[in-house]
């Protein structure tokens, strides 16, 4: 031991620590936080190498920031990888489908070199059947966790390889992926070959050809099955499945197509505490009542309940920790939530239908609901709401009571012509000042929602915020420049509908010290030469791309197909891999160096 100590000491020229490699090797595996690991790897060469040998998981927040080759060279023994591709806006139909984020080069490298890889998570990326085949054949035997999260480009043929060859899979996650469904054989293969499955997620995939008999078989063979989320499948067909899956704690999906009284015969597994039943209406709701008090998580995003139904149900769920629903919950529902669910940690209120008659008229959320919520649910950590009206006082209440908030997102709808209390400068300042744990922050407003002063407040008081999404904030370039003097932790910034010029955007980028990723849609482009004024942010390792304006077909409020012209996007990010080489026609790399030279 002494000798070893002496040797390792002499090998280390920069390191002042007297810790031996052996000791370090014992300590290192306990360091998990990526920022700690990052710090460790910067101490000296030896520590860098040790980190590289022992790091178990890597998240590459944007796949074009590096290359498969670089990943292999540094972290050859990686056990778990998460890769993200398309900008977040892709979840809102704002990014061309073929934009990029292809997994193929990564899959090829994984097949070739990453022998220890057990867990793989692709998010918002393009995956082909061939990629799935390569992966299944090379790593199928060891893969335990496989997540295709909001991915596209593949079919059930590709999944067939997964079902057949990935027999050690504990988690198969396909939520919200766009999958071409040819048949349901792939699930049958999975049912035949797997006995260790714990999590199966086909939520919001529209995979309707899967057979409930295969689900029963999986429940029978996989005694550790804990979480199942599927697409539309008649609940009455799942009665036997529910009987067999004794360990089930989470279930989402299904659908109700028969007479309401038939569902009284459905019994759920005893440990079920996370639930979301699609198309559940007021008449079917009572089947949840017997175990409502056990529920920790409730997903009503895809249910057919009105405000009154929400009140009835939520009142019984006093152990609820997570609630996801649409704004039909209304202020009244939020008041019930605030008085009944004191343990609530996460609340997500999404936007329901706009069209007349499709949603409960009472289904609007405003400052009234938010104030009640702030006073009642003191343990809230995550809050995302779409509101029809807002006041500074409501935001001040949130700041005063919800000190545990780490993620806050507010969207002000365009429905009402008049908002009670704009601009929101003071409320925003109060919230940011007091919610010191805030890491993620989104503010989606309308013109007049936040002045330049208010935008400056965001810069000044968002000390720990790493990600921000802003729409219609500020009044002029001055506001943006003031904002960018602050935000010391801001790594990722997304903006829509700004009144800022290209040159202000570029200057702001240069001032934001932690910024590594910028996405903007809707800004004041240079009339003469679009993109030219972005030259202020040209710098080494900083890629700048443009998605030019394009015409898209969207469904408007009345449900008609309308052609809309979508404005240009700017996407800029740090990369060690140089500019992209796999552009589709819809994306244009900005050759600003060329522009500047002319």
């Amino acid at each position, binding site marked *: 031991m002494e000798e070893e100590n002496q040797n390792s000491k002499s090998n280390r020229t920069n390191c002042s620590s007297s810790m031996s490699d052996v000791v370090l090797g014992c300590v290192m595996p306990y360091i998990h936080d990526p920022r700690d690991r990052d710090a460790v790897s910067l101490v000296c060469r030896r520590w860098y190498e040790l980190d590289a040998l022992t790091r178990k998981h890597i998240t590459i927040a944007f796949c074009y920031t590096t290359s498969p080759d670089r990943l292999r060279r540094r972290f050859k023994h990686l056990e778990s990888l998460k890769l993200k591709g398309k900008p977040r806006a892709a979840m809102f139909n704002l990014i061309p489908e073929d934009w990029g984020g292809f997994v193929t080069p990564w899959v090829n490298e994984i097949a070739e070199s990453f022998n220890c890889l057990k867990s793989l998570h692709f998010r918002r990326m393009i995956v082909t059947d061939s990629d799935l085949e390569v992966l299944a054949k090379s790593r199928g035997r060891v893969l335990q966790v496989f997540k295709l999260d909001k991915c596209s480009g593949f079919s059930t043929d590709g999944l067939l390889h997964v079902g057949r060859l990935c027999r050690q899979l504990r988690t198969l996650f396909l939520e919200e992926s766009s999958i071409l469904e040819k048949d349901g054989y792939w699930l049958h293969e999975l049912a035949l070959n797997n006995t260790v499955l714990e999590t199966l997620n086909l939520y919001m995939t529209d995979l309707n050809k899967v057979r409930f008999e295969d689900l029963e078989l999986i429940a029978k063979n996989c005694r550790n099955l804990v979480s199942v989320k599927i697409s539309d499948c*008649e609940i009455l067909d799942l009665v036997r499945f529910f009987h067999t899956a004794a360990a089930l704690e989470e279930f989402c999906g299904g659908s109700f*197509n028969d007479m309401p009284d038939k569902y009284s015969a459905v019994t759920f597994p005893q440990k079920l505490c996370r639930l979301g039943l699609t198309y559940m209406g007021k008449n079917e709701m009572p089947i949840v009542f017997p175990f409502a008090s056990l529920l920790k998580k409730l997903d009503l995003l895809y249910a057919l309940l009105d405000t009154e139904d929400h009140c009835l149900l939520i009142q019984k769920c006093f152990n609820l920790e997570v609630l996801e629903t649409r704004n039909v919950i209304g202020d009244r529902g939020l008041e019930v939530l605030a008085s009944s669910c004191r343990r609530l940690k996460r609340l997500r209120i999404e936007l329901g239908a706009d069209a007349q008659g*499709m949603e409960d008229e009472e289904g609007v959320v405003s400052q009234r609901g938010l104030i009640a919520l702030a006073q009642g649910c003191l343990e809230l950590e995550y809050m995302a709401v779409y509101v029809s009206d807002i006041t500074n006082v409501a935001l001040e209440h949130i700041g005063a009571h919800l000190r545990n908030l780490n993620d806050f997102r507010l969207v002000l709808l*365009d429905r009402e012509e008049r908002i009670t209390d704009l601009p929101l400068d003071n409320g925003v300042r109060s919230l940011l000042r007091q919610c010191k744990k805030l890491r993620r922050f989104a503010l989606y407003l309308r*013109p007049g929602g936040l002045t330049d002063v208010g935008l400056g407040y965001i810069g000044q008081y968002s000390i720990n915020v790493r990600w921000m999404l802003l*729409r219609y904030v500020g009044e002029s370039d001055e506001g943006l420049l003031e904002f960018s003097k602050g935000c010391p932790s801001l790594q990722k910034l997304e903006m829509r509908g700004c009144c800022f010029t290209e040159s202000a955007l570029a200057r702001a980028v240069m001032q934001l010290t932690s910024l590594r990723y910028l996405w903007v849609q*809707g800004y004041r482009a240079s009339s003469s030469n679009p993109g030219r004024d972005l030259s202020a942010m040209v710098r080494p390792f900083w890629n700048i791309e443009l998605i030019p304006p394009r015409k898209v077909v969207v469904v408007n409020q009345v*449900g008609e197909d309308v052609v809309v012209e979508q*404005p240009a996007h700017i996407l800029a990010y740090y990369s060690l891999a140089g500019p992209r080489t796999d552009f589709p026609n819809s994306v244009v790399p900005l050759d600003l160096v060329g522009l500047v030279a002319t």
Partner: protein
Amino acid sequence: MSRASVELDFFGMEKRISANSRFPKFLHRQRSFRDIQSAISKINPQLLKSVIASGSANQQTPENGHQLDSKKSFSVPSTPKEELNPFPPLPVYSPLQRPALENPPQTAPLTIFYNGTVAVFDVPRDKAETILKLAQNGISKFVESTNQKQLLGTLDGDLPIARRKSLQMFLEKRKERLTSVSPYACKSVCRL
């Protein structure tokens, strides 16, 4: 206060319709009054708002066939008066039913007198109330926001709040379920 105008070119005097104009060529003189009426009734009140605002902002003298700066204008020949005719203070809404007009039901003519010019539109009740409310509640404030909108270019219309894909899918499926003939039509699809 400016001498603004909202004019209609009934006689097709205005030949210089700009290439970018979104209006169909309903200003051709052979067209009947009725056709013009029905065409005008299809005009989005949003457009109308910006016409009124741009009218008060632009301060142009109305002349025969004179094209205002804003593309969204129409002109009618008339004799401009020295005095200004303000909008009627009360939302006097006259439910006159003109016989044999091919109006869709629930719309009625909305007549606007302004600075010696007359404009008649056929709009449904709620849109009429919106227009009148706007006129009452302060054009100046509105002009500011319109100018800001013009500054932002077509941003406002093109950046509506985007909806999450998964929710969009759900809302469309829900509509199908509610509007399908048999509410239990899905049954056959789900079972095999």
